[in-house]
């Protein structure tokens, strides 16, 4: 019995089509995985289903009847509830209070019956397999457990369709198991679940069916049992999977290179939360190394942990044979390691400031004497980088916000290069920029390498990554799963490797063990 059905949904923001034609259905007692890379349209679809956005075209049917929600409240009343990553509870109150906000059992309709509430809460928690004392203050629980409480609260409001948006990103391995327990209980209770996650192993362990979005359309809908990982990944990346033998492409992971004097960057046993797991990699002088992997595989987190933008839990980073302790971005730059964030808008540009101010932001100390910045030296360096990188600007005093995305990115690359690094990490440098600027950035990367710089780069487009790198380090769920040379290979080869690896015996048992 189909519970909730979205038919041919389309939604545009201005000229940008977020969803072009998306259909999705959830039956009672079914868990549907919703997957897709960034910008595929997942969050827009969820917002439409929960009444946060209105769709331009298409129908939403609940129990076969057409519905239209103009507010999240209406969607909730109709039985569609969503759990987001943020926790919307009151930390200072007890677990029971939080579970029964606004609907506590009362005596004479006036006074909260605490004993009744506590025992109701205990029953509710144990029904979903969560062993927590309902009288405890929420704040004293771990964040993951708080999130589980939040999920139980949402599903206990009588929801018939529950949407879980990246529910496991803050959870420990044990808490993920508890979450799976909750979701399976929901399935037994005939609730329909839409499960959004980047973690493929979770989807395989939990979902009955998977729907993959790409560029605002459904790229694939298939029952989990009939869906090999390779096909799923191919659909997410928008590629046809070509079967090739794997052994031919993989280069033996060169342990010999680890101590090589050619290494400009050497990383060992790097860990950060659960998102960077025992990562080791090398970048040699004049080499372009790509960090490949699906969204959520830990590419950005790995770079940030190396750079010191987040503090790694353990591991060592060696730059130019110089082993570092307690890295910070400032020290990384001093040691010759520069980093370009993928989030240009909030971590890259200073939007109110000029091109010159943005470009010179990391070299101020070098062009200052006694703390006074030399205008002359700044202008000289700025115009050097503007012409070297081909930044199209109305003058170095123009505000950075007047530039196109591609030119803003060139300014930020100029900022990274202005520190004269021996190795530079570029996190998805061509994201959201036009084709011409893309090609120029590719040329710049090749040029840097030919001058002996080491480059570590990511991209959301696998083909681009293969074409522009010498070697790929493949990440999956925070781990390095393999290293392979890209020279002379096609993206399909690499895709086969990535996909093949993810069904390799080493990673499969964990997923199978969790499967029902």
């Amino acid at each position: 019995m189909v519970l909730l059905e979205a038919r041919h949904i389309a939604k545009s923001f201005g000229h940008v089509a977020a969803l072009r034609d998306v259909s999705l259905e959830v039956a009672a007692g079914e868990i549907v995985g919703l997957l897709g890379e960034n910008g595929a349209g997942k969050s827009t679809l969820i917002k439409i289903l929960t009444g946060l956005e209105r769709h331009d075209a298409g129908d939403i049917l609940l129990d076969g009847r057409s519905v239209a929600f103009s507010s999240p409240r209406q969607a909730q009343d109709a039985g569609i509830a969503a759990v987001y990553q943020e926790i919307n509870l009151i930390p200072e109150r007890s677990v029971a209070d939080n579970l029964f906000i606004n609907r506590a059992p009362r005596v004479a309709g006036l006074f909260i019956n605490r004993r009744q509430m506590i025992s109701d809460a205990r029953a509710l928690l144990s029904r979903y397999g969560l062993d927590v004392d309902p009288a405890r203050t929420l704040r004293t629980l771990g964040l993951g457990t708080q999130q589980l409480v939040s999920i139980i609260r949402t599903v206990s409001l009588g929801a018939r369709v529950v949407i879980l948006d990246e529910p496991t990103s803050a959870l420990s391995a044990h808490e993920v198991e508890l979450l799976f327990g909750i979701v399976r209980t929901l399935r037994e209770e005939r609730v329909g679940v839409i499960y959004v996650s980047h973690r493929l192993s979770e989807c395989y362990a939990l979902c009955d069916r998977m729907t993959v979005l790409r560029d605002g359309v459904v790229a694939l809908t298939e029952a989990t049992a009939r869906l090999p990982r390779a096909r799923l990944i191919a659909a997410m990346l928008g590629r046809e999977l070509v079967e090739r033998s794997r052994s031919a492409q993989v280069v033996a992971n060169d342990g010999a290179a680890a101590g090589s004097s050619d290494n400009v960057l050497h990383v060992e046993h790097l860990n950060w939360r659960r998102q960077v797991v025992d990562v080791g990699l090398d970048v040699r002088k004049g080499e372009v190394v790509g960090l490949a992997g699906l969204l959520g595989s830990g590419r950005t987190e790995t770079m940030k942990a190396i750079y010191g933008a987040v503090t790694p839990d353990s591991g060592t980073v060696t730059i130019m044979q110089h082993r570092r302790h307690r890295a910070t971005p400032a020290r990384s730059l001093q040691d010759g390691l520069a980093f370009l964030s993928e989030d240009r808008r909030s971590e890259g540009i200073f939007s109110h400031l000029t091109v010159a101010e943005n470009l010179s932001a990391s070299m101020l100390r070098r062009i200052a004497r006694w703390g006074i910045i030399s205008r002359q030296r700044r202008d000289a360096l700025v115009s050097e980088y503007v012409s070297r990188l081909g930044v199209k600007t109305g003058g170095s005093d123009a505000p950075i916000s007047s530039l196109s995305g591609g030119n803003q990115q060139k300014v930020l690359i100029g900022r990274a290069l202005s520190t004269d690094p021996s190795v530079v990490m570029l996190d998805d440098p061509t994201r959201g920029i036009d084709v011409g600027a893309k090609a120029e950035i590719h040329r710049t990367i090749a040029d840097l390498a030919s001058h002996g710089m080491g480059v570590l780069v990511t991209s959301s487009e696998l083909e681009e990554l293969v074409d522009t790198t010498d070697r790929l380090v493949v990440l999956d769920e925070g781990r390095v799963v393999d290293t392979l040379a890209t020279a002379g290979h096609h993206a399909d080869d690499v895709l086969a490797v990535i996909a093949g690896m993810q069904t390799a015996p080493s990673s499969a048992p964990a997923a199978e063990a969790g499967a029902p």
Partner: protein
Amino acid sequence: MKSFSSTLFAWPGGRQMRRISIGTTPPGGKPSRVPNLRDLSVYLALVLLIIFDLVLTPGFRNPFVVRSLLFEAAPVVLIALGQSLAIGTRGIDLSVGSIMALSSAIIGISLGFGQNVGIAGAIFGGLACGLLNGIFIAIFRIAPLISSLALLVAARGLAQALLSGARVDLPMDGPLSALGQITIMGVPVVAIVALAVAAAFAFLVRRTLPGQYAIFVGASREASVLAGHPVRATLIFVYGLSGLLAGIAGVFASARLGAADANYIGVQFELDAVAAAVIGGTPLSGGRIAVAGTVAGVLLLTILDATFIMNNVNANFAQILKAAFIVGALYMQRGRA
């Protein structure tokens, strides 16, 4: 209204004024650098108010009135400059008025050691408070609003305790008396000092590392961290400097009053400082510091106070009018804040 005003003020002379501030575009960033009403409003309002007073307010032309105004404005200019720096980092420093009181109290209790010792102690006390504030904000990541509010309460309390709530008259001769009275060609020395500090401030924010770091931190703390800026040290510097300036302002205000008084000096001055900085064109969203605009903002508020007094407006009613004026001025700045 908007298009009307921007055409009205798109005159060439505006360019000069436009360059007073760093980070020259309002958010939403049009590439054009044509000045608009928002950028000039503070100067326009100042000019209009002065014309109003010259024509309608009895006695406003009297040089003694002007001199008195400048004596009043000097300490406020100092704390408003410190404030504009704090606001430029997307913070706020509410403690400046109370630090002035503490500075005054330190002078009051240290008269026995000589006036110079008292002045030095007062300025040092202000610096110490500011550094403490900066450490809370930068290292312990307490919101500037909360940290400086705590200091507002604590510094005033400490000042009152030091003087046991009493007013201590200052000697009629020596450096303190001089600061409170001496003028050069009719201009108070304290006003000249304040103007010199403003000029140094303009240089600080435009041309020096700490000043530029402050603007970067205010524009985007995340980007600033990744660009390798010493964000914490910058914040400690900013609030330390604000405290130092408040310490000097406390000396000036005490000298003018001729007494150390923890119950009178600097009361609610933090509000004037914030209002002057924001009216002057420093947006609460950070990333831009308008030094000359802040000075103009202080003059505007000081003259406004004088206008009410000289026209015999009831003091309570005057406060309401002033509040309405500030709200109106901030409304015109809303695109930034």
